[in-house]
């Protein structure tokens, strides 16, 4: 009864594929953008992972030097804080040792009028935005939740609930549009964070409203102990852009030059109204998640060793030295700049924090409630009794 025509045979179906397959969408994938080799040499254009018509210009020497200076400071801060935690002078510190190039590029690609939305890991990015180091460390020392005013450097709080900050970034871009302000917003997130529902909602809102937001994923291969293979089955995290109708790029996250180039272009395109964008930085968390973690429980030393070879500082240093841009004088100056920050951190953390327990009540609301006023009075009374007792005693 059914007409016999050119239809494939329903019983002996040979074709065993469905729709847009992995093979298909792997076709147009650009390589990973990289400009400086791991040993510090400039790669030729066709080694850079880009395709014709899609090449990136090299950042200027000054841009690279400024970035390198921040790398040196960032590394020093990471290592100083690590020590301070071990000495019990800081409560916790999630170090970005090994990821400094990504951290620094995320900050430097932006102008002061732009906004950055960082995570707990992104102390170095926040510092590179110009925020006062002592204020940044408040959180990790534990005297208050956050120590800087987000409005002073257009830098939001370092977010702990994973991925939530990406939605704040989107909202900030919406606010700017409403107010007629020109602004690019960069939101930071980890590889683990891409699995949260908020990641999806943030990218989708940004693309539906066509907002100038850059979603910058630092793929450092681990979410605490959980490896990347447990977060995604996609060929790269940058591929996630496709599902939102936005462009994505994968970049060597330990190559400051490539990072500045890629993020720089993303910022430019955003200013032209062509955002949002997703940028994945291929990097590695060299140390444990925080001091409370022990990375040897879940990964091999070999893997860590491999990544040591790809260190972002060494690479940029070699390159800039070879190019003659980084002089001994400059190097010495950067080191001493970094040392100054470290010293001020040590000094500050060595002193007792100034604490006012009544602060607990004074910032919960702009208009205080009678309930909190009563509780504040209770604590004030306890404190004065205590002071009295101490005084007597």
């Amino acid at each position: 009864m059914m007409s016999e025509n050119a239809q494939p045979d329903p019983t002996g179906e040979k074709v065993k594929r469905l729709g847009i397959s992995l093979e298909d969408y792997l076709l147009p994938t650009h390589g990973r953008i990289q400009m400086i080799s791991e040993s510090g040499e400039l790669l030729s254009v066709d080694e850079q992972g880009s395709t014709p018509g899609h090449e990136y210009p090299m950042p200027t020497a000054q841009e690279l030097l400024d970035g390198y200076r921040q790398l040196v400071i960032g590394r020093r801060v990471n290592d100083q804080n690590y020590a301070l935690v071990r000495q019990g002078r800081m409560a916790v510190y999630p170090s970005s040792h090994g990821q400094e190039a990504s951290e620094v590029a995320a900050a430097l690609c932006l102008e002061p009028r732009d906004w950055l939305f960082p995570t707990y890991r992104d102390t170095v990015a926040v510092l590179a935005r110009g925020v006062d180091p002592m204020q940044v460390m408040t959180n990790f020392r534990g005297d208050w939740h956050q120590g800087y005013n987000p409005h002073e450097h257009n830098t939001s709080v370092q977010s702990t609930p994973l991925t939530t900050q990406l939605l704040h970034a989107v909202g900030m871009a919406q606010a700017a549009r409403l107010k007629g302000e020109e602004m690019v917003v960069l939101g930071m997130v980890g590889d683990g964070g891409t699995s949260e529902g908020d990641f999806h909602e943030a990218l989708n809102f940004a693309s539906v409203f066509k907002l100038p937001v850059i979603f910058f994923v630092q793929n450092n291969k681990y979410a605490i102990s959980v490896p990347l293979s447990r977060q995604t089955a996609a060929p790269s995290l940058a591929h996630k852009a496709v599902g939102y109708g936005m462009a994505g790029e994968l970049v060597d996250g330990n190559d400051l030059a490539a990072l500045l180039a890629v993020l720089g272009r993303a910022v430019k395109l955003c200013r032209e109204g062509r955002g949002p964008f997703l940028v994945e930085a291929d990097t590695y968390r060299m140390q444990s998640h925080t001091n409370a973690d022990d990375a040897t429980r879940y990964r091999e030393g070999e893997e860590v060793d491999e990544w040591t070879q790809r260190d972002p500082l060494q690479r940029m240093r070699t390159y800039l030295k070879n190019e003659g841009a980084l002089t001994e004088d400059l190097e010495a100056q950067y080191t001493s700049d970094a040392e100054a920050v470290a010293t001020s951190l040590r000094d500050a953390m060595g002193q007792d924090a100034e604490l006012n327990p009544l602060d607990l009540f004074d910032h919960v609301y702009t208009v205080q409630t009678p309930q909190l006023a009563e509780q504040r009075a209770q604590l004030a009374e306890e404190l004065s009794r205590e002071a009295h007792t101490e005084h007597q005693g």
Partner: protein
Amino acid sequence: MSKDKSTLSFAAALNAALADEMSSDEMVVVFGEDVGTLGGVFRITEGLSQQFGEDRCFDTPLAESGIAGTAIGMGLGGVRPVIEMQFDAFAYPAFQQIVSHMAKMRNRTKGAASLPITVRIPYGGGIGGVEHHCDSSESYYAHTPGLKVYTPASVEDAYLMLRAAIRLDDPVIFMEPKKLYWSKAEISLEELRQEFNTRWAQVEAQREHGEPYARAGVARTGEDVTLVSYGPSVVTCLAAAEAAAKEGRSVEVIDLRTINPLDEATITASVTKTGRAIVVAEPQGFTSVASEVVARIQQRCFHSLAAPVLRVTGFDIPYPPPMLEKYHLPNVDRILDAIDDLQWDDTPVDFSTTSTAGGH
């Protein structure tokens, strides 16, 4: 506009409050699901996107965490967002954004970043809604420091309190009793506007009393017993008071208006006078706003109480299907039963077996 009183519905009052705030401050924006072209599934945002443009009243992708999360970013960016959660069970996907950020951002930054966000949530039952459409989630928000929780019970308050909530620099969870949307009052919008302006001028003058509607209302005065209630249950309490009056009992009814802050002074004054109190509220009673009010009354008014403070609340069950909701909701009979239980003579009543939900 004429000053003549005319019939104004609760929904229209909310709509007017939104429009008036959008007119007076162009940083006020409204967004959510179906709030744009459609004007909201309850028509509370009707006409706003037409009147103020699609930049200021718009639909988002369907994602509540996204709505709350972007509102936080906008608040940080100097905008004053008013967001709608379509039904209150559908605010749960936004729980993390609301509890971990909206409520805490100001405290976290020592006041540098307050978030002037209003989260409008239609709540409660009594409209024959199917599962997930009749939750009462105010207790979750009341338990969350950093949020304020408002809920009007009259057309006037719908207008006045929504405008106040939008102007407040703190995040306000604005709970709208669905079953009152179609209730009406003889009232002129123009008078309400003047009322609001007058009160707001007072607020401006005395900045520290910045919440003009954080005063409980005495919805009916009485001498024998106090019913403390809010939102959808206030009308039930008033009906119960009316019925009790016929039986010779004089019942005072208090409408909390704001759950946080809680106007304990008004409650305490009433219970000190009457010596008896029942808290009436729609959600499941366990660990609820009603529990809190009971706990406070028994402490504040200990020496005045002739009987324990009882509760008439919903049962501790998932909200029932439409055909069974009437068995769950606090009603006049249950309130009257609870009143009867309040130890009116000298024989001690055994309260140890009195129900903690239905109140008798």
